[in-house]
């Protein structure tokens, strides 16, 4: 008989024991393991062989400019790299100051540009573009180091982000008669367009969705009915329909001399669509907050607005981070649907590239490349969300 405080018994037993327990416990476990290893191994070897020997990756390298920026005029492309410099600087600083999820996003922005720089170097984009992208990565890294333990910069940084998004958009679209002549959004394309649609979509759909969720729970009948009607109407219609509406039908209702840019209309469609889903996610979070929280806030003298802003929403929003990030990931992927109204984002550009006679039959290469890009983007988002949950203590307090 043993007494006193004992260490927990060792239940791992090393790698061999793990293998035996998990893969070779019985004769049919062993059979399954062997068959799966053979099948997966054959697949992996085949894929690797194809990627190294057969695949014509030239289709990606040659058309890298199209994949990255679409038909955006090359002599104006410096504006895109400059815009990225601004975003890299802000992302670097934020990563240093906030850490956590922002650092995941910042790291991705820096690493992504460094990888693209490598591709650009060997492609027709040339060493100067590669240098610009490497410079951006360096700016992000420098910002990160500068931002460490500079929590006093927080407010300035928030203003920086708010100002930078419209500034970058203006930089890209240009003003006629200046050093940055107008570049119609009809020539924006590729990853640039995917990025603009997804970023603007997420940044605008989120606050709109939160407002709709609050509206649906409002004590004022008019606001409640309108919010509910909006949410139910939008959720009853496919995104494709909304994009068609925005592209074809909306102009019919506008006076002839008012023309809204096609990309803006598509973005608007995506925002209006996603906001309804954000609203329902957030409403789920709001319902999970015990009434005692609101009562405590009221008893302290907080008015309805303050109690929502400081007590209810912070708790509700952190509870629905997984659901909302899932929604943002599908928003990112749904941006490919704008191809039906003639906008060539990454996937659309891929199909245009495949129509070039010299690259007939290179579907696999193009789609694998696009799949990798989308996977990296989506995986980054989900990793950032895990970091965000961890830093906010979701599920643990």
């Amino acid at each position, binding site marked *: 008989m043993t007494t006193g405080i004992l260490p927990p018994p060792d239940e791992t037993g090393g790698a061999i024991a793990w293998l035996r327990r998990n893969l070779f416990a019985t004769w049919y476990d062993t059979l399954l393991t062997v068959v799966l290893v053979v099948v997966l191994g054959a697949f992996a070897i085949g894929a690797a062989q194809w990627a190294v020997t057969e695949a014509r990756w030239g289709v990606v390298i040659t058309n890298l400019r199209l994949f990255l920026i679409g038909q955006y005029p090359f002599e104006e492309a410096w504006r895109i790299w400059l815009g990225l410099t601004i975003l890299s600087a802000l992302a670097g600083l934020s990563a240093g100051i906030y850490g956590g999820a922002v650092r995941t996003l910042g790291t991705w922005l820096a690493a992504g540009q460094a990888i693209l720089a490598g591709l650009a170097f060997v492609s027709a984009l040339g060493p100067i573009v590669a240098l610009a992208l490497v410079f951006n990565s360096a700016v992000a890294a420098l910002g990160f180091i500068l931002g460490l333990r500079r929590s006093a910069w927080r407010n300035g940084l928030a203003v920086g982000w708010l100002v930078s998004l419209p500034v970058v958009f203006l930089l890209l679209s240009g003003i006629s008669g200046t050093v940055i002549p107008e570049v119609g959004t009809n020539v924006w394309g590729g990853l640039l367009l995917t990025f603009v649609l997804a970023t603007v979509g997420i940044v605008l759909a989120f606050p709109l969705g939160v407002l709709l969720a609050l509206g649906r729970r409002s004590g004022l009948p008019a606001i409640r009915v309108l919010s509910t009607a909006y949410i139910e109407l939008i959720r009853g219609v496919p995104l494709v329909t909304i994009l068609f509406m925005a592209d074809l039908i909306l102009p019919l209702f506008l006076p002839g001399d008012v023309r809204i840019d096609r990309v803006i209309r598509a973005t608007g469609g995506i925002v209006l669509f996603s906001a309804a889903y954000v609203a329902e996610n957030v409403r789920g979070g709001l319902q999970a907050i015990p009434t005692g929280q609101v009562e405590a806030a*009221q008893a*302290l003298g907080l008015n309805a607005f303050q109690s929502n802003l400081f007590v209810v929403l912070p708790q509700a929003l952190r509870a629905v981070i997984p659901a909302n990030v899932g929604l943002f990931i599908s928003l990112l992927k749904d941006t490919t649907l704008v191809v039906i109204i003639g906008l060539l984002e990454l996937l659309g550009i891929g199909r245009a590239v495949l129509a070039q006679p010299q690259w007939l039959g290179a579907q696999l290469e193009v789609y694998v490349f696009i799949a990798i890009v989308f996977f990296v983007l989506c995986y980054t988002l989900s990793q950032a969300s895990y970091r965000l949950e961890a830093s906010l203590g979701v599920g643990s307090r």
Partner: protein
Amino acid sequence: MGSDQIDPAEASDIIVCHDVHKWFGQAHVLRGIDLSVRTGEVVVIFGASGSGKSTFLRTINRLEVHQRGQIIVDGIELTNDIRNIAQVRSEIGMVFQQFNLFPHLTALQNVSLAPRRVRKMPQPRAEEAGMELLRRVGIPEQARKYPAQMSGGQQQRVAIARALAMEPKIMLFDEPTSALDPEMISEVLDVMRQLAGSGMTMLCVTHEMGFARAAADRMVFFDEGIIVEEGSPERIFEAPEQDRTRRFLSQILH
């Protein structure tokens, strides 16, 4: 009613309740409560569950709306006028059975939230005042912890500090020790006793008869939505007049 109405300006006591009625659907849960509380008085309200004592407490800062009668707090009558409600709430602190701390904020942030956002106090000053309150309830070392990292007794003491942060004239306690493990009850009662000693006006719904005997100026027995009996602790404990009071006391005092 008519001539029966009380003019708020002439109410001399800090809390004046007159003929307060409240219904939940068909259920008549408050059936004409008359109760006045003087400044600095400590009143313990007790009674069986469902007797309306918690509901009554919650009508005083209008977490529940009374449907008939008058409630006048420090000369302000509680009506649907939002300004009156806000003003009355700023004079009343409340402590709940389930603590209702804000789980996403640290102890110190819980305490300093209302002074910062309602009183617009600058953060350093609000946190300094918050630390002072946490010292007063005996847990300054828990300031940076989140509610889930504290024991129930510590959480309830943070909740008391949070209610005190708005410098209320009146404190309402709604069964503050009912959700606590037995060994933590005394640390909360100690804080309440200390508060009573400092001259705070207090209304406590509680079954802690030791606390009532030591700290209460008056005890009020609720049953089925009416006040059955009230009096000093000595009289209630030694010579209760009503059968119902006697029966209830014998049940909870064993």
